[in-house]
């Protein structure tokens, strides 16, 4: 199986199957990262823009670098830019036609997304990458271009904020 780094090299030469394979490998983690970052808003635009930038910059991809780190760096930067532009109100993803149980389940999901959205961006980034994407502290630090210690402290701050929310619920 070709590595991600080999595939992005092929993409730089206009290879469509290589790009399809990269999309297949990363469609879920990348789109879910964006979804959780933006609480489900403008996901398609940001997802598309991330891949567009990746394809445009494919020829400049440094061979020593990890593709996943590079791709998520692009996504993080785009999400940060989006956050500066986007209106603050979070979208309501609950389906009006859903049944009561379904609505309750969706509400729980939306509440969790809203809580995530309320976290300061640096804490949210760390929490999503560490918890949902299951990345190590080193990988997270590489994506966010910050020291490992910063990842640790942001993770703690994020958890402390969420713990306060949990206590409020009680």
């Amino acid at each position, binding site marked *: *199986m070709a590595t*991600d780094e080999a595939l992005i090299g092929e993409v*730089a*030469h*206009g*290879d*469509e*199957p290589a*790009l*399809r394979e990269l*999309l*297949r*490998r*990363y*469609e*879920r*983690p990348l*789109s*879910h990262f964006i979804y*959780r970052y933006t609480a*489900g808003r403008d*996901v*398609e635009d940001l*997802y*598309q823009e991330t*891949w*567009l930038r990746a*394809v*445009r910059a*494919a020829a400049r991809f440094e061979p020593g670098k*990890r*593709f*996943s*780190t590079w791709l998520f760096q692009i996504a993080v930067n785009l999400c940060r830019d989006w956050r500066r532009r986007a209106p603050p109100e979070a979208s309501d*993803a609950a389906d009006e036609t859903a049944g009561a149980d379904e609505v309750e*389940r*969706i509400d*729980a*999901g939306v*509440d*969790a*997304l809203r*809580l*995530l959205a309320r976290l300061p961006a640096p804490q949210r980034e760390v*929490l999503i990458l*560490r*918890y*949902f994407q*299951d*990345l190590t502290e080193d*990988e997270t630090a590489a994506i966010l271009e910050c020291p490992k210690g910063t990842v*640790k402290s942001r*993770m*703690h701050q994020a*958890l*402390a904020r*969420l*713990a306060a*929310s*949990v206590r409020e619920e009680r």
Partner: protein
Amino acid sequence: MNEHPPQDAPPAAPLAAHAAECEACQSAPLPIDRIAMLLDGAEVSLDTTVLSARVMVRLRRELTLAGGVPWRAVVSALVRALPALPAVVACDTYALRTAYVLGKAILPAPLVAYVVLSYGALLLLFFGLTYAAVPVLVARQGPTRTVAG
């Protein structure tokens, strides 16, 4: 992450691992299980396959640009277009000569020559533009090979 790209199944392990390592968490323990339950509620309702299919349509053009000019396709298109050129030129030459002969019977020769030569020059320009458009059209079409998957 090469062989195993980041998966989306959220394990509570990163939280537990953090709590075990973090001095602040140890001095004031956090309700990790409750937080994990809360985070697990952050479900994503997204059809990633449809999303990728839409994005792929847009990416195809970028991919063509990234790959540079597809010279093989350009040469192949030109080779297919060139054999018709002599026949078209011969037909037009015959038509122009006939027009000149017929025109000379009713109009002064210099005027007919002017009209016929102008028309001939215009035709040459059109031919040039048509063949120059071949590489542009090939590049806009994108990769010509079929892609599996």
